[in-house]
């Protein structure tokens, strides 16, 4: 249920609730409760009123002032015997400083609020520098859907620090650890890991991860030779890269090497061992690299196909697949970003003649592999709710997971003209944030 909250001037430290609530299944200790909103809390007396509507709550003005709650919006209320929690209070930590929460940024953030009618409460756009850990407050904007006249339904103010926070920016380790601590791990998707760290986490659970290609850290040509003794070709890729930047393919014919860039063009002077060693020394001087078993992904018309699988938690706090999008590369290239996109179902039906049932089962297989990876990543204790996986199917349609991206492009469905799924991606993060805060999504 969504509650209207009003302020009462002639009382102190009291919350007034309807007798209809206490006559039902709710037990409230009338002698005193802890009243919380986000990370602010105070003790209050409870007064049960007969003339209040079920969905009406009154708070003494001193409580409102302390909790810093705007009253032009509705809230959910969570009753325990000794505490009453108003919420959800959700933070969208999307900028470094308050000034950087520009009109444009705020406008972009509106897509997260499309499902506001299902959750209500305080949705905050906040920045890293404006968090006051000591007081448990934050300066920012709250979403106020009642602002009809104004161009942007965001209002500036100081609010309780949220206990459920979603971020898609880089924040300092200090802030991250602090937020994790005060919010009881309510900060999600904050911890960055690169490709190498990803592989190291996966390899601890090798028995469950037959879908992760063999990977090594690249130090010298010995690592490549070693991998080439098991696989006919290998990829080398930067540990931190995205979008196939700096990707090369290497294979070996007797003692002759062959190196191609991501466009499938041969790199000159990389035939002998010495030349390849020199080539590797050059690229390693700038950044860390990995060497990975090359896969032969499915393709059509000379195009490689790979998949972006968006896995998100929703209100059930369970990993679900929001969508799978296929990328078809340009003919002849060894990577598939970013030629054009297609629906997963369409590509398997049209080019690989899968039946609808086979498509469904393949999809379940992919989702199940991704869920396993999600579970492993969470074993570190980090809270995640939103991943974009890079997945390929090899010539035997075996599933391989190459990478898990935390700040994946939410806009990928739009490349396919699928606006609905784009909004769904945004909505799921808010659904998860609400559930994480202990509130319901209606």
């Amino acid at each position, binding site marked *: 249920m969504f509650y209207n909250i009003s302020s009462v001037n002639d009382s102190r430290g009291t919350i007034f609730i309807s007798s209809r609530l206490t006559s*039902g299944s709710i037990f409230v200790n009338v002698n005193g409760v802890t009243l919380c909103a986000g990370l602010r809390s105070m003790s209050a007396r409870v007064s049960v009123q007969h003339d209040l509507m079920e969905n009406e709550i009154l708070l003494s003005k001193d409580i409102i002032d302390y909790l810093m709650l705007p009253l032009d919006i509705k809230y959910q209320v969570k009753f325990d015997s000794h505490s009453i929690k108003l919420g959800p209070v959700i933070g969208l930590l999307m900028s470094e400083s308050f000034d950087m929460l520009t009109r444009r940024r705020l406008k972009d953030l509106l897509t997260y609020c499309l499902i506001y009618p*299902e959750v209500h409460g305080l949705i905050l756009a906040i920045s890293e520098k404006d968090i006051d850990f000591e007081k448990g407050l934050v300066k920012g904007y709250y979403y106020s859907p009642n602002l009809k006249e104004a161009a942007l339904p965001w209002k500036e103010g100081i609010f309780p620090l949220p206990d459920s926070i979603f971020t898609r920016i880089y924040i300092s380790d200090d802030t991250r650890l602090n937020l994790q601590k005060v919010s009881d791990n309510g900060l999600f998707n904050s911890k960055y890991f690169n490709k190498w760290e990803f592989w190291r986490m996966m390899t601890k659970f090798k028995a469950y991860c037959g879908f992760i290609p063999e990977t090594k850290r690249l130090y010298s040509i010995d690592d490549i030779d070693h991998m080439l003794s098991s696989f006919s070709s290998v990829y080398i890729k930067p540990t931190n890269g995205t979008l196939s930047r700096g990707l090369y393919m290497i294979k070996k014919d007797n003692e002759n090497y062959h190196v191609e860039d991501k466009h499938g063009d041969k790199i000159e002077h990389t035939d002998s061992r010495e030349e390849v060693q020199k080539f590797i020394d050059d690229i390693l001087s700038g950044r860390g690299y990995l060497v990975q078993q090359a896969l032969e992904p499915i393709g059509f018309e000379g195009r490689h196909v790979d998949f972006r699988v968006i896995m998100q938690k929703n209100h059930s706090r369970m990993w679900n697949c929001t969508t799978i999008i296929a990328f078809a590369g340009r003919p002849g290239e060894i990577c598939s970003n970013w030629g054009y996109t297609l629906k997963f179902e369409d590509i398997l039906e049209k080019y690989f003649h899968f039946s609808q049932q086979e498509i469904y089962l393949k999809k379940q297989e992919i989702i199940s592999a991704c869920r396993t990876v999600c579970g492993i990543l969470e074993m570190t204790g980090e809270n995640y709710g939103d991943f974009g996986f890079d997945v390929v199917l090899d010539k035997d349609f075996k599933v391989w997971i190459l990478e898990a991206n935390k700040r994946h492009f939410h806009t990928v469905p739009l490349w396919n003209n699928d606006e609905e799924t784009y909004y769904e991606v945004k909505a799921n993060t808010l659904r998860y944030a609400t559930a994480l805060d202990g509130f319901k999504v209606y």
Partner: protein
Amino acid sequence: MFGPCIGILSDQRDSSITKTTLKEASMNALDYASIKGAMILFALDKVNKVDQLIEGYCYNPKNDSWERGRFPYPLSIYRKITISDEWQNHFLSVIGDTVFNNYFFDKWDMYRWFSKELNLLPHIPETTLFEEKRNITEMLEKYNVLYIKPSQGMKGTGIVKVIKENQKITFMHRADDKNIEVTTEGENDFKAIVGKLFEPGNYIIQQGLELISFKGGIVDFRCAMQKNEAFEWVCNGIFARTGAKESIVSNISDGGTALPSLELMKEIFNLSEIEAFNMKNSIISVCSKACMALDEYGLNLGTLGLDIGIDKNRNIWLIEINNRRPHPRIALRANDIQSYYAIMSGPMHYAKALAGFRYKEVDDHVL
């Protein structure tokens, strides 16, 4: 243990289990790879209460077949048929509250429950039970259009539309693909037709809604709401149905068609993508509220088909809930076969969780 032992109670009698029954159950078992364990299909007359054993069929995923055998009681049961309270209590005492959908409610039950829910009230058409003709005249004082429906009826059969114009009252219903109209003018006329059409206690009288129409047929939306492994309700499909032209109901069995819901909303209301997304979510939201309310009454439900109407002012109305066998064939008619598979395998995910393989503990303290 590597997986749950799940039961599918499909028939009263073992002799009625046909190839079709098993084929349909194979669709339920489609996502076996993520359920695992044993799935056992059985009929009520092969349940041995004394030894607590059942004779039925166990799913063999290797060749997608069902193998006859004797098995212990499953840990949870997806119930597709009505069973007596005695059976219900038997299973409750032996395997616990893990039988779903465990309660079949009718339209009148639904109204009595939901009219007490503040957040559902705006979405429930006013309804009274038909006991005497006075109930109809009283409703006609408030509304010019009424629908009178059998409280247990399904698929739009037996629905009568009542229209008051000046002093005339017209009763319209559908038989043999034709609309039959009877107009009454005097008290005696009215009494006679009411007496002929409606049996006291078995019909409900519902406020008439001006639902949107498409190409001359009334439109409503069927939402497949299912509980997942975390015991949360999710919508696994939403389909628009349009009734036959001029028909008073929007049921496909009466010659209508099924369409993808979002496309139809966009077309009817001339909506942008974002508005269509919002409308779809508002519909799902009403369904979620209704499902959560049913949970609070202590029913154990896992798969429901909710019928939603939208009126010309874009108000959302919960028209009825199908909880007997909410067949997802509508997904096939809407040409959404992937949703069909998801809906068919949905109950097994919930059954798995009920059998003790629940995804995660969730809080239930928000009211």
